[in-house]
């Protein structure tokens, strides 16, 4: 590359960056089950009664719930055509019929226009077909335009009632799509979609690489690394207002942002003092950035523990990249991973017990592995050659990651026990750097 290209890149980047296109709808992301489990729970989501002035959307609430539960790999929802009965309230349920259909659980309900005309009210019941007991009855309201979100919340509640862990359906995923790389007009898009693949939108478009998107704990903001100026910068983008601001543009590397659990601090990797080290940036701007690690090696990819008292990070201080932890007030870093030559890009499960990493035994294959911090057990979840960027679902059920397939970047997910595998099918382009959001309240 020669000097001319640098200026041209910077110009292109500047122009495109000024033309941020928040909310530009893309082709839809599709999530397919590759491997499911034997004996997924048979369940039936009866069509919800629709009591609103506007017509019921083609994608009904019950079909959204069924699709969610099926996609999890743990449920086997009945097709609507097979349902003889369409009860709405518990007294209308003839349990004998559902027992004959070999359904364990039944969900019934209704969607009404809200009393004040603003949004919708959901009322639904989860029933045990064998005993005839009501396991869950709930009513809730959602805003206009949040019908799908309501269906996701119902799915979360059903999942939790039957499995004892919260669902992760009312969530979103962020990822980067690269197009035309290696040509004169490359395009990098930071994309956000609902966890079921709907509402795929490009929130940032840029002629320069975008990497490491990460969610704020309230799922309202994304921090990411941009090369828009020709050098790495860390930017925080508000998904609701569309506003963005540069939070770090130091000399050298500005990389690997991670929000603290209270959303007030951003841990990053900066090389302003020499080698890349972990720094803490106060997002309120009241304190100067504080250097957390002080080491001549590479120190990057910080992630906070769930209580915010420690930071896990990747360091090659022992020769090869491994995962370390350090208290939020500094001190001695402790090495956490010993198995394998390469452990990097840690993502913590919800109770901090499971640690998802990029793992390699001998620089041949890079796979996603889980370290169980209690038992010390290591399990390899993926089977690719260049798998990277693991990101735990907020309920710990699945790990989302990037892989390469036929020379193209794709997204995939595997359940934490390795039994369920999903493939995330997108439109054209190289897809990478996935990040699963916290649960949206």
């Amino acid at each position, binding site marked *: *590359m*020669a*000097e*001319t*290209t*640098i*200026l041209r890149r910077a110009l292109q980047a500047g122009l495109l960056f000024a033309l941020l296109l928040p909310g530009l709808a893309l082709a839809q992301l599709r999530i397919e089950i590759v491997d499911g489990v034997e004996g997924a729970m048979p369940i039936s989501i009866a069509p919800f009664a629709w009591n609103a002035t506007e017509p019921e959307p083609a994608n009904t609430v019950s079909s959204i719930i069924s699709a969610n539960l099926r996609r999890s790999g743990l449920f086997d929802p009945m097709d609507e055509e097979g349902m003889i009965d369409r009860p709405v309230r518990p007294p209308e349920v003839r349990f004998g019929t559902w027992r004959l259909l070999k359904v364990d659980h039944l969900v019934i309900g209704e969607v009404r226009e809200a009393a004040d005309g603003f949004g919708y009210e959901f009322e639904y019941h989860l029933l045990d077909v064998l005993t005839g007991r009501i396991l869950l009855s709930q009513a809730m309201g959602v805003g206009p335009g949040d019908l799908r979100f309501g269906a996701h919340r119902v799915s979360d509640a059903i999942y939790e009632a039957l499995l004892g862990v919260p669902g992760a359906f009312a969530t979103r995923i962020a990822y980067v799509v690269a197009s035309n*790389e*290696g040509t004169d007009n490359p395009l990098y898009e930071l994309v956000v979609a609902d966890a079921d693949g709907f509402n795929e939108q490009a929130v940032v478009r840029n002629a320069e*690489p975008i*990497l*490491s998107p990460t969610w704020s704990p309230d799922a309202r903001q994304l921090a990411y690394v941009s*090369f828009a100026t*020709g*050098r*790495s910068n860390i930017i925080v983008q508000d998904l609701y207002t569309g506003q963005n601001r540069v939070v770090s543009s130091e000399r*050298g*590397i500005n*990389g*690997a942002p991670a929000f603290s659990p209270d959303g007030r601090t951003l841990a990053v*990797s900066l*090389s302003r003092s020499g*080698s*890349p080290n972990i720094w803490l940036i106060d997002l309120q701007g009241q304190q100067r950035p504080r250097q957390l690690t002080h080491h001549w090696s*590479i120190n*990057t*990819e910080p992630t906070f523990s769930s209580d915010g008292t420690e930071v896990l990070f*990747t360091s*090659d201080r022992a020769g*090869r*990249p491994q995962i370390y932890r350090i208290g939020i007030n500094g001190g001695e870093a402790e090495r956490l991973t010993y198995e394998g030559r*390469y452990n*990097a*890009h840690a993502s913590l499960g919800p109770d901090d017990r499971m640690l998802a990493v*990029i793992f*390699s035994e001998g*620089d041949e294959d*890079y796979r996603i592995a889980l370290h169980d911090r209690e038992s010390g057990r290591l399990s390899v979840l993926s089977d690719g*050659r*260049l798998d*990277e*960027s693991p990101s735990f679902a907020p309920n710990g059920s699945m790990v989302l990651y990037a892989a*390469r397939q036929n*020379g193209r970047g794709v997204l995939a997910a595997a359940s934490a026990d390795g039994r369920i595998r999903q493939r995330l099918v997108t439109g054209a382009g190289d897809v*990478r*750097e996935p990040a699963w959001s916290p649960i949206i309240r």
Partner: protein
Amino acid sequence: MNTALRLIAIVMLAALMAACARQTTPEPEPPVVEPPTQQPDTTETDRIDPRDFTDVRNLDNPESLLSQRVVYFEFDRSNIRAQFRPIIEAHAAYARANASARIILEGHADERGSREYNLALGERRSDAVSDAMSAGGASGSQVEIVSYGEERPVCRNSDDDCWQRNRRVEIVYTAR
């Protein structure tokens, strides 16, 4: 911006891409640098001495080490291999003799492993070249470093050949 420079950039890029596309090449070792043994013809007064690393014309002279602008690295390493020292020393000598010269050292990594770690690795490689340039007499204010990690490969196949070509530092002149 100089049209000639732009042309050179395009030719270099084309050469790189051609090198990249050559799938049948069995031995993908990066070019080994031999100092030119041929004596310059001293009878021609305007003939350039390719070993004169202070001469701006040698930046575009394929016979001169100054025309070579890429240093390649081993996997997950940032130490400079012996065969690339002469290239770096030539550019250091040029910078020392030409105070107005400005250089950006762009560090790159292959695609394996995490992108952020590779960003750090690219910087470490740029740092290594920068240190060697300083040792050769380039002043700190002349040399800047930037890392692109694995984000700007010159070759896009997932194989050893491409990976070798992508693990590199590019010596880019912003002023000569």
